[in-house]
């Protein structure tokens, strides 16, 4: 029965396509791939203000994602924000004097931790601590400035 | 042959059956016996409830009063599983054929075999071709139901009804839409199924000629009552006006050709209100 065979094949293709779609959504669209990541080690960084940083926010170096934020807590003694960063083991050669900054991707984009390697010969190890940090830019201020500036520009544009 | 049907020897017995649809009483306290191994015919004007009776016997409709026993079991008190296993031994030829429209003739006849048996496909093929041969449609096995004429569809449905070699078959107007040749063949088929397999047959039909030729016993129903019963001979010689009108096909008599309505002239002359 040729007819039935074609139907079976098409159903098979359909199911395969659907599952591929689900797989695509899981691995390519969502953050699932970062859970299944290979071994990682954790370091901490203290910020005066961690802004809108969240658990699972990306950690990148030179624009490439190398890990993610796994915890943020407030230290009542120093009044600082203690951020735990989980870094992929393959990047285990970050110098001890690496600096961590909190940046925003785009103006309204999410915040992420950017690491800038220093020049030390000693590398950060699991449980290590980043000494030099730069806090988040306070978004509200930036927006205020931006809106103010663009309003001014528009007003000037109208005058001309 | 016995003059009256003995309840001891009947496969199906209907006792004091009353059935209503809305406000109309379709059956009003009727009792019938259908003897094992015999062909019992039910005749009656269109719309009296012959199809309804078959559906009641098949357990698809529930009576308001009375009981229907098949093989000494009350059909309407059976558990679902028991009803289904009983139905496996009952064939029914629907008035409309009721073929499954998404399969061809072959698969339609094979359907009950595939659903209820675990026979290998080669065996099923043999059985299906035998049944199709019996109704003269072996050559039409690859046609789809929409490619069949009404009469052909009915014959395929008959082949399907006998596929499981049931103990009884209910035929709902098997001869309608058949040409004289296939009518003759069907009469022969029904008769021989009955004789060779010892089937019990319940046959609904309007065809006086064919029915009197093969039936062992005939019930004539009209207006919810049994108006006549007996062997074909008795029926033919019946003095009952009802039966005579039916057998001779006279338009006038106790049975009216017209569905109950108000007076024709009154109706025509009454206001032109649209319905």
């Amino acid at each position, binding site marked *: 029965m040729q007819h039935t065979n074609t139907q079976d094949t098409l159903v098979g293709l359909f199911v395969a396509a659907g599952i591929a779609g689900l797989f695509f959504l899981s691995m390519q669209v969502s953050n699932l791939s970062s859970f299944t990541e290979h071994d990682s080690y954790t370091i901490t960084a203290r910020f005066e203000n961690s802004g809108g940083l969240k658990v699972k926010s990306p950690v990148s170096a030179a624009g490439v994602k190398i890990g993610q934020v796994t915890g943020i807590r407030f230290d009542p003694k120093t009044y600082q924000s203690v951020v735990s960063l989980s870094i992929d083991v393959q990047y285990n050669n970050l110098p001890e004097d690496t600096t961590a900054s909190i940046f925003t991707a785009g103006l309204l984009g999410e915040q*992420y931790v950017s690491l800038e390697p220093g020049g030390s010969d000693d590398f950060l190890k699991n449980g290590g601590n980043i000494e030099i940090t730069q806090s988040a830019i306070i978004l509200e201020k930036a927006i205020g400035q931006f809106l103010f500036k663009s309003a001014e520009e528009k007003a000037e544009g109208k005058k001309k | 042959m016995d003059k009256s049907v003995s309840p001891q020897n009947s496969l199906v017995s209907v006792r004091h059956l009353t059935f209503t649809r809305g406000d109309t009483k379709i059956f009003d306290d009727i009792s019938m016996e259908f003897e094992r191994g015999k062909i019992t015919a039910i005749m009656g004007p269109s719309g009296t409830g012959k199809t309804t009776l078959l559906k009641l016997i098949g357990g698809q409709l529930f009576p308001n009063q009375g009981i229907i026993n098949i093989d000494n079991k009350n059909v309407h008190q059976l558990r679902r599983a028991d009803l289904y296993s009983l139905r496996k031994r009952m064939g029914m030829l629907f008035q409309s054929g009721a073929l499954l429209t998404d399969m061809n003739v072959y698969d339609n006849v094979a359907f009950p075999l595939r659903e209820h048996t675990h026979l290998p496909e080669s065996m099923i093929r043999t059985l299906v071709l035998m049944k199709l041969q019996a109704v003269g449609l072996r050559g039409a096995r690859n046609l789809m139901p929409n490619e069949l004429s009404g009469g052909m569809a009915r014959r395929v449905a008959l082949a399907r009804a006998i596929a499981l070699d049931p103990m009884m078959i209910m035929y709902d107007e098997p001869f309608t839409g058949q040409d004289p040749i296939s009518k003759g063949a069907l009469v022969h088929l029904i008769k021989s199924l009955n004789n060779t397999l010892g089937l019990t047959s319940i046959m609904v039909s309007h065809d006086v000629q064919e029915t009197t030729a093969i039936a062992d016993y005939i019930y004539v129903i009209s207006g919810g009552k049994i108006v006549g019963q007996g062997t074909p001979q008795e029926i033919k010689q019946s003095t009952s006006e009802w039966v005579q009108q039916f057998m001779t096909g006279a338009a006038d008599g106790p049975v009216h050709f017209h569905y109950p309505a108000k007076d024709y002239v009154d109706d025509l002359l009454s206001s032109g209100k649209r319905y």
Partner: protein
Amino acid sequence: MMIEFLQTLGKNTRASFTKLGRATFFLIQTVSGTASVLPRPRLLLKQMYSVGVLSFLIITISGLFVGMVLGLQGYYTLSDFGAEETLGVMVAASLVRELGPVVSALLFAGRAGSALTAEIGLMKATEQLSGMEMMAVDPIKRIISPRFLAGLLSMPLLAALFSAVGIIGGQLVGSGLLGVDEGAYWSQMQANIDFQDDIINGVLKSLVFGFVTSWIALFEGYDSVPTSEGVSRATTRTVVNSAFSILGLDFILTALMFGDD
């Protein structure tokens, strides 16, 4: 006048309740009937074909266009704020959480649901269901349950395809046409779309929609008046009731799933 109105209202209310009762009973039978489908995958496969495969084209093409429109509109809106990097997030979130499950379910109701109702209704009108019962074959198990299961399984697959194709469509427009950085499109998306909260919830939504749409379609067919007019009315009711149920349920599900974020 008033009395008449109240009478009609009462009658209609009672009719809706008895119908709901029948529908519930039907659902229970259908769901318990699915157990007997599993040993016969061929029945399911055939229905997956007519329910799933035949909906494939309309779903993927619609998904592509919806994604492209989202890419275009999203870009215009976001670029005003200099946030076009987040286009991927916007496109993916809209699709995965809402548009994927909802639009594909609406299309499914129109494409497959109406066909199911018409098919079952006609089977009833031509006494095929009744005939099956007399052959001791339960039409619920043999006809309804496989179709129900096929609808239930196809819906999440179709919704996933819709979203996936849409996200690619958004990327084609966003980075292909409008110059959003491709890397940013994907990485921002990955950072913000949560597997648990977004993908799983989206799949759950489409399972619920598949369940409800198949239920409505099959019940309306099974419960239809067995005439051509009755079947055509039932088909219309399937599309209308499915649309209402999908949109109403979507609101409830969204409130439950994404509410306390």
